[in-house]
């Protein structure tokens, strides 16, 4: 068995009085591609964001890249890290790609990709440049290296964002609806890059509305509803033979078009 990179057990997250995650459990082993699907408000993005601590879970167990996240509560009962240094360690092993790209607009494409390796991880500039250029080549944007993000199409920006996530040499990649902000004709170029990453055996967890893509690329699919994983399984089973009515209906409407 390959090692577990992510272990989530009974994870809970509330925003004020609203409980968004009501005890979620999942496991990702090295090389797994997990797809999180579900309607809006089902908690799938929140779950993803808990994995690199952009959201601090209120309770439950969370292990990322083999490191258990230790959470304590302050006097207002707000969750926080017991050891702040854990934040940097966890995040340095997790690359994240956002729905709205979130590139840094004042840095060129190449600078965006090199930013974290040089300024956060202390890589040497020459080394970081070489690595960044090879990543830009891989996403097909070598000739855009000196362009600022504001002058790129959405698909190009998202491919830069993927290169930026790869630049920190992450053990785990998170994608938060990576194609939802794109024009339909630009979706393909981004999916192609993500598919390539899956093919080379990278561990990835993605929140997506692209059901066909999830079916073809994921090794495991989780259907979330109302803050719990209502149904999960290998994509072929889950998509062809959903067990619950809600899952059946969700897949029906999303695979139809």
């Amino acid at each position: 068995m390959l090692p577990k990179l992510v272990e989530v057990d009974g994870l809970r997250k509330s925003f004020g009085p609203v409980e968004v995650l009501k005890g979620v459990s999942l496991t990702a082993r090295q090389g797994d591609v997990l797809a999180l699907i579900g309607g809006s408000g089902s908690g799938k993005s929140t779950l993803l964001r808990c994995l690199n601590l952009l959201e601090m879970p209120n309770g439950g167990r969370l292990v990322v890249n083999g490191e258990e996240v230790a959470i304590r509560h302050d006097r207002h009962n707000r969750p926080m890290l017991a050891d702040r240094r854990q934040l940097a360690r966890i995040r340095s092993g997790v690359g994240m790609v956002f729905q709205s790209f979130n590139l840094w607009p004042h840095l060129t494409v190449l600078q965006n990709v090199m930013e974290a390796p040089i300024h956060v991880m202390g890589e040497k500039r020459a080394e970081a440049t070489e690595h960044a250029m090879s990543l830009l080549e891989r996403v097909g944007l070598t000739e855009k290296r000196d362009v600022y993000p504001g002058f790129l199409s959405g698909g190009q920006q998202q491919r830069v964002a993927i290169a930026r996530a790869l630049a920190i040499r992450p053990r785990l990649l998170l994608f938060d609806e990576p194609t939802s902000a794109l024009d339909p004709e630009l979706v393909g170029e981004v999916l192609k890059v993500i598919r390539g990453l899956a093919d080379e055996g990278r561990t990835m967890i993605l929140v997506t509305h692209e059901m066909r893509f999830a079916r073809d690329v994921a090794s495991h699919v989780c259907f979330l509803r109302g803050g719990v994983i209502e149904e999960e399984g290998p994509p072929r089973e889950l998509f062809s033979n959903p067990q619950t009515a809600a899952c059946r209906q969700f897949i029906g409407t999303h695979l139809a078009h």
Partner: protein
Amino acid sequence: MGGILGFGPNGWGPALLSGALVTIEITIGAFICGLVIGTLTAAARLSRVPPLVVLARGYTTICRAIPELLLILVLYYLGSQLLNEALHAIGLGDAPISGFATAIIVLGLVQGAYASEIIRGAILAIPYGQIEAAHAFGHARILLFRRIILPTMLPMAIGGLSNLWMVLIKDSALISVVGYSELLYTAKQAAGYTQRYFLFYVVAAAVYYAMTLVSNIGIRSIEGRFGRWMPVRAR
């Protein structure tokens, strides 16, 4: 007429020139001082640490509520009195309070109060996703502020800050009330000595005007630099 404005033995040229230089020095000094204070105050107000927020809000409120002229008088006279009393108490003599330092500190304090609001607004205008991405890639605190927040908020702050700079050039004249020889004070002295009031005040006005003109060119070139990464450039 060329004689009294010139650089000859009876000319006020050298004095006016050094007055103009002092005005420029005070303006630059107070502006930098104001930027530093303003940035720190904006950071304090956005820190969500209650005592820092209260302190920053109190400072901006007071410094924007009191006339600068009054602040200069209070800080210069009261400040020097308090400082000297403190020095006497530990057995030392009078401290020389420099008009130049007072000018920079007082104007810088006032500038800082206004600048902090401009900078705070510009920081709040940064799309949050960019800051969140920086969090996700491990930027924390000072690195986040220096590498991401500061450069991305600048284009949004530049308009307000250049306004402040323009106002500051002229506000530096306020320091003449404590007898410091900047441009206006020198012009007033020259006018009184030669009885040529109109001439010297017009010359002083022309010099202030020239300073703002040059500033405009500088500001435009700074704004142009942001066009490199802002797809819609404001020309």
